[in-house]
Each structure stands twice: as structure tokens, then as C-alpha cells.
């Protein structure tokens, strides 16, 4: 099961990103656990300065915007 973190606090796009990932995973039938990480310390850990950012299994795959659905599909299927 993929462990997915969505980094960022207080922005509407962060919540939307988490929802979009969950919905996409369900559609593709991929088992995921999506966590919204709001602790600012996580931004230092993953070296992010624009949110929302997406971390999959401890690797930063995206930052600075809401990811496009086709990108999410790519991450989930790899």
C-alpha cells in the first residue's frame, strides 16, 4: 500500500489535492493511505517551499500546485 502525504496547511487547494488523489486511487483500484500533513516542520524535512506538495513513500513527487489527474495516475500505477 502506498503511503501518500499531502503537505500544506490552511489552503483550499491542499484539501482538494488530497481528495483528488483518494478519488483517483479508488477509481484505479489502488490501495493508498492519504494523510494531510499540516505540520510546518514537514516542509523542511521534504525541502518544499510551495504547497500543496505530494510525498509518496517518503519521496517528494510534486509541489506548488494541484497535480493534474494524469500525473496522479502515473504515480499510482508506477
Amino acid at each position, binding site marked *: 500500500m502506498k503511503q501518500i502525504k499531502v503537505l500544506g*496547511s*490552511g489552503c483550499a487547494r491542499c484539501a482538494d489535492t488530497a481528495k483528488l488523489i483518494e478519488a483517483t486511487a479508488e477509481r484505479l483500484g489502488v490501495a493508498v493511505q492519504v494523510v494531510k500533513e499540516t505540520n*510546518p516542520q514537514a516542509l*523542511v524535512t521534504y525541502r*518544499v517551499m510551495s504547497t500543496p506538495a505530494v510525498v509518496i513513500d517518503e519521496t517528494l513527487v510534486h509541489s506548488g500546485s494541484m497535480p493534474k489527474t494524469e500525473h496522479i495516475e502515473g504515480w499510482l500505477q508506477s
Partner: protein
Amino acid sequence: MLEIFNYLADRLVYELIGLAPETALGSAASFFVASVSKIFVLLVVLIYVLAWLRASLNLERVRGYIAGKHRLTGYFLGAGFGAVTPFCSCSSVPVFIGFTSARIPIGVTMSFLLTSPMINEVAVVLLWGLLGWQMTLLYIVVGLSIGILGGALLDALRAERYLQPFLAKAYAEGAMTDARTESKRLSLRDRHDFARDETLGILRRVWIWVFIGVGLGAVLYGYVPDDWVERHLMDGAWWQVPLAVLLGIPLYTNVTGIVPVMESLLLKGVPIGTTLAFCMSTVAASFPEFMLLKQVMQWRLLALIFVLLLLAFTLVGWLLNALAPLLFVGL
């Protein structure tokens, strides 16, 4: 060029709808229609053009430019980039962390963060459209100066002592100093896509503020009697500026909402320093924003910045009220 909107609004309100220009409702309605139409046309055209120009500028590149520069250069660069990058209060915490972890001094980062909400393309568009280029220039100069001087002062007071511990550690270690920024070349198509998304995104975010701000401005313009303003605010007594600044704090709006209010205050004859102090305080000193920054700063630093801003707005207000007779002879 922009008078066309006033002309069309008068036509619509007075001739088609048939309100009388002498009535409060008539003048408020004409003010509302003229301002709203002017603002939306300017917003669409200018945001698109500006976004097109700065499509390749992102926060990582800004950080790359600023990191490692001399402090003094840093304050100017910080304030300058703060002015040209669009601001969203949800990005202030990540930006603060990203800059600080790259060992950019707190003052330089604050120059960026103080200037960013005060000056942006929407503010410039509105000021220029509603109040003319002189006011726009004055507003930009004041905003940049507050950012530059505020940042320098925070460093002089060694503000880095009051960071939250995890960030103080990241600053000391330079946790992101080696961060690479990849620059990709943008095609015309990419730029168009970016500019279109920006324009739509900003419009979606600010349209409600345009209506609220202009609505409030129209009410002030149409219904607050001129002689009331004359009796209470025109004399520019010294205490009016700090009072205006204090009143501005709990009124949380963004720059889109405040510029139309500014226009009607000025039209009513409120002195320019008092008006500007009120508006900047409304835009830049907001509690929600400060609550967010609590995640990265200790209370003492937040309080310090807050007091600093209030003092700065008050001083600017006094200064402009004193200089106003020299500044705008023609207005």
C-alpha cells in the same frame, strides 16, 4: 481613456434607469457601475499581460536570486520580488520556511513578506484605474519603503532569536542551501496557458472583493454627507492617523476590496495620509495572517512585527498629511 467608463455609467444610470444625479442613490449607483466595469476590464487585460511576462518566475528562482547576496542588496531585492510575485496568505508560511532554510536573513525574508500583500498587480491595476498614476506611484514607493526599512530593522533587532526552534535549527544548518532550481524554457503556448490560468484564478478569487469594496465605496460616496467629513476629518488632526490605523486592523480585507474605499475617502476630502494609513493597515496587518505565521515565529517576533507595522503606517500617514500640500497641487 478611462473616462469612457464614467460616461457609460452616467448614461446607464441617469438616462436608461432614470435616477437623478443629485440623489444619493443616483450618485452611488453611477459610482458603482463605473468602478466595477472599469476594474474588471483593467483586471482581465493587465493580469493577463503581467502574468505572461512573469510566467517563468517562480518562488524557487526568486530564492535563488536572493540567497547569498549582501544583506543590503537583499532588502531591496526582497521587497522588489515581493511586489512582483502574487501573494496568497496560504503561501506565506512555506515561503518563510523555504527562504529561512536557505540561510536568507529573516529581515530580507520579511522585506519580501511585508511588501507582497501590499503591492501586487491587482493593487496597481486598481490604483491606476481609480486614482491615477501619481497615487499609484506614491503607494508603491511607500509600500517598498516599509518593506525595505522594516526588514532592515528586524535584522538590526536580531529577529532570528525568536524563530520557532525547528526553524531556528534549519536556519543555523542551512537545511536547504543546496537546493537546486531547474529552469525550463517556456514556449509561447506555455506562457499563454499560464497567463490564462492566472487571470481566471485571480478573477475567481477577487471578484467578490471588487463588489464588496466598490459597494462600500459607493455607500460612502453617496450617503456620507460631505460636511460631516469636512467637520470631522478634513482638518487632519494628529490623532486621526493612529486612529485610522487601529480601525484598519480588525477590518480584514485584501487590497482589491480596499482601493475603491480609498477612492471614495479621497473624493470625500479625507487627507491623503490618513487614507493611506487606514488602507495599508487593513491590507497588511491582519490577524488571520499573523495566526498563520505563529507556526514559524514566537509570539515576541510576531508582536514586534505588528508594532513595527503600526508605527510605520502612522509615521507614513503623518508624513504624507504634512507633505500633501506640496505633493498634489493639481489634484
